């Protein structure tokens, strides 16, 4: 793993306090603008970008519109005038960038293909070589079933599951968890961009940024009791996850408010949105509220009333974890 020696402990602590530790620890100066901005405001910025006609007349999202929506979100997040400018604050040429998608929901409910293509396009414009981009999840067959084209060789963008490379032999531990990490994350990525889907989750309450990291460990099935709490927060404390994850781009183009994490179209809605933030805790909090609003609109009880409030979000923000903030007063939600 390549580290940036330019990042000081003071930077790290400062960004910990403002809830963006994952942003700067491995990235150093290139990302300090965003960290400084967050620090000055003492708030975590979460951008919610919407396009009501993202799909036009079709049921699938329009590639050009999703690219524009991504640009809007990224430029708002980084205060940039041009798309490339925002991505250059995120990544630097020579870095190997992992895109952790969520392919569990099959073709209808996995990280949107057009969105992933748009991200790859912008990463390359920011100077990342195609071969240094790797799209991954747990299982190659799952990726294929979700519509991803598998690619493991040459100078093309790579796309395959952890089943191809396997998991590290050694356990890494934090708190209540002990897991073997995907070798794709531990050996093939310097930077992790998290691409979850906005979902209701029967066990955890909701599933977005933090929960998506269950897809980089060998034993996620062990961590579902007690609403996945404190397991989700603990998994996100594992060093390779905590230090490499710089950004979450949550695919909220289609979302579920009930019956998750599997795809139940009867409990889903075309939300036509992206939620973007370097703070995975703040993002999960904002996404949770979005799901609660939809539940209320549909006449369903709150997740708390159903005894499945996502308590792991508060755990991720607590003094032991400091993975971000769940305090609404310290979250700046910017709708574009």
């Amino acid at each position, binding site marked *: 793993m390549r580290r940036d020696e330019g990042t000081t402990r003071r930077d790290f602590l400062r960004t910990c306090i403002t809830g963006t530790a994952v942003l700067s620890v491995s990235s150093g100066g290139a990302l300090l603008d965003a960290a400084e901005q967050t620090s000055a405001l003492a708030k975590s910025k979460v951008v919610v970008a919407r396009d009501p006609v993202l799909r036009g007349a079709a049921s699938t999202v329009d590639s050009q519109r999703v690219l524009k929506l991504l640009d809007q979100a990224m430029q708002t997040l980084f205060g940039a005038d041009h798309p490339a400018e925002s991505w250059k604050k995120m990544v630097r040429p020579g870095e190997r960038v992992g895109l952790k998608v969520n392919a569990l929901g099959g073709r*209808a409910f996995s990280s949107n293909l057009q969105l992933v293509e748009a991200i790859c396009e912008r990463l390359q414009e920011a100077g990342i070589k195609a071969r240094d981009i790797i799209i991954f999840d747990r299982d190659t067959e799952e990726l294929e079933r979700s519509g991803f084209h598998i690619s493991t060789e040459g100078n093309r963008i790579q796309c395959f599951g952890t089943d191809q490379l396997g998991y590290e032999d050694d356990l890494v531990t934090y708190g209540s968890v002990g897991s073997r990490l995907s070798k794709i994350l531990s050996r093939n990525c310097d930077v992790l961009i998290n691409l979850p889907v906005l979902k209701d989750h*029967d*066990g955890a309450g909701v599933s977005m940024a933090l929960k998506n990291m269950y897809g980089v460990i060998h034993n996620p099935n062990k961590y579902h*009791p007690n609403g996945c709490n404190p397991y989700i927060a603990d998994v996100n404390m594992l060093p390779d996850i905590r230090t490499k994850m710089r950004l979450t781009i949550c695919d909220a183009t289609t979302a579920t408010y*009930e019956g998750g*994490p599997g795809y139940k*179209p009867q409990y889903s809605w075309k939300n036509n949105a992206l939620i973007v933030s370097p703070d995975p805790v703040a993002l999960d909090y904002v996404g949770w509220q979005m799901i609660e609003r939809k539940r209320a609109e549909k006449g369903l009880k709150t997740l708390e009333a159903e005894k499945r409030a996502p308590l792991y979000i508060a755990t991720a923000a607590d003094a032991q974890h400091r993975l971000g903030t769940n305090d609404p007063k310290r979250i700046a939600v910017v709708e574009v």
Partner: protein
Amino acid sequence: MTGGRSTVRSICSVAFCVALLASGACSRRQQDPAAAFPASNDVAGWTRTSNVRTFEAADLWKYIDGEVEKYLKAGVQRGSTADYKFQNKVEAVVDIYTMSNADGAAQVFNSEPPGDAKPVQLGDAARLFSQSLVFRKGRYLVRIVAYEESPAAPQAFLALGRGIGQQLGE
């Protein structure tokens, strides 16, 4: 008289054996949910586009992730799934969950809000939505989910569901 009794005894024995065999065949059919997935064109317009994949209870999380807890609590034994296509237009996934008993299937079915489902006559209870069909029959819970909405989908789901229901045969 003795000959008559013997004939009656023989008929009874044969009938008993036939009943036993039938019961065995039925039991085998129930134990293998993969056999309940209709082959291409068994149901008009429907083509099966993948093999049946089966996940035993201990591995079911690999297919349905965190939702597995609900199924485990309800006594799931295994889940099987296959992809289908209707008239080359509607793509769908069919899941059949085998529970320990009918109460388990009812437990999962009843945990899901009916929403704007249309009640339909299928199995022990069924809900038809614009993009999916869920029904239970005995210890089986069946879910058909389409990737996209289509005007033809609901009726096509019903036909496929009835085909599956007949194979489950309880």
